[in-house]
């Protein structure tokens, strides 16, 4: 199934990508999508996206690594927030 990956702030700069259209196996979790991104885009992706402080959101809602993805999801990765 097809999902959209988006990256923000330091993650975008470290991986030199603001995101991509990506294909994962049906019923993939966020964790398995990270594994697939590592296999497809390189070890740096696996390393950066697996860091403990990286936050994830699906369709603008915060989720954890066990969240199950569905076709068309927008999966976002970003560092802890620093606004205000």
């Amino acid at each position, binding site marked *: 199934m097809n999902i959209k990956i988006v990256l*923000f*702030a330091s993650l975008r*700069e470290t991986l030199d990508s603001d995101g991509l259209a990506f294909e994962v196996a049906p019923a993939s979790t966020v964790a398995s999508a990270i594994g697939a991104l590592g296999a497809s885009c390189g070890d740096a992706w696996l390393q950066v996206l697996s860091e403990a402080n990286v936050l994830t959101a699906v369709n*603008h809602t915060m989720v954890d690594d066990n969240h199950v993805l569905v076709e068309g999801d927008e999966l976002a990765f*970003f*560092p802890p*927030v*620093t*606004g205000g």
Partner: protein
Amino acid sequence: MRICVQTEDFDSGAEIIRLAGQSNGVGAVNSFVGFVRDNNEDTHVGSLFLEHYPGMTEKQIEAILVEAEQRWAVLSATVIHRVGELKPGEQIVFVGVASPHRGDAFDACEFIIDYLKTRATFWKKESTPDGFRWLETRQTDVESADKWKQPT
């Protein structure tokens, strides 16, 4: 409620007047304005770049305002957060709350800015003499937000 994420500057006075004019039941308007400092952690800051996650950021701010409305007597609330490149002395964020009485306006306003700092998808990058650096979450900001947690 009024939520704006924008590159343009804002007029705090006009925002306060707008909040006060929402109803004749308004007895107090409390506001907070955040500014760009020219230094951080003993380093000179030449400029600040603010990034956000369009769509998600606005949704998170709305959730924060809804929670504020549930916890305090809030007649109207405004959050304006700027993004893009900002220079020292420029305004970054406006939070305003209109309430029947000052206690609710003070508390709701502080709650909103504390939650904005720790829950809304904004990221700051500073330009320093040593180059650019992304800011990291301050522990004091996390502690400020934690004080509003309610027992579950």
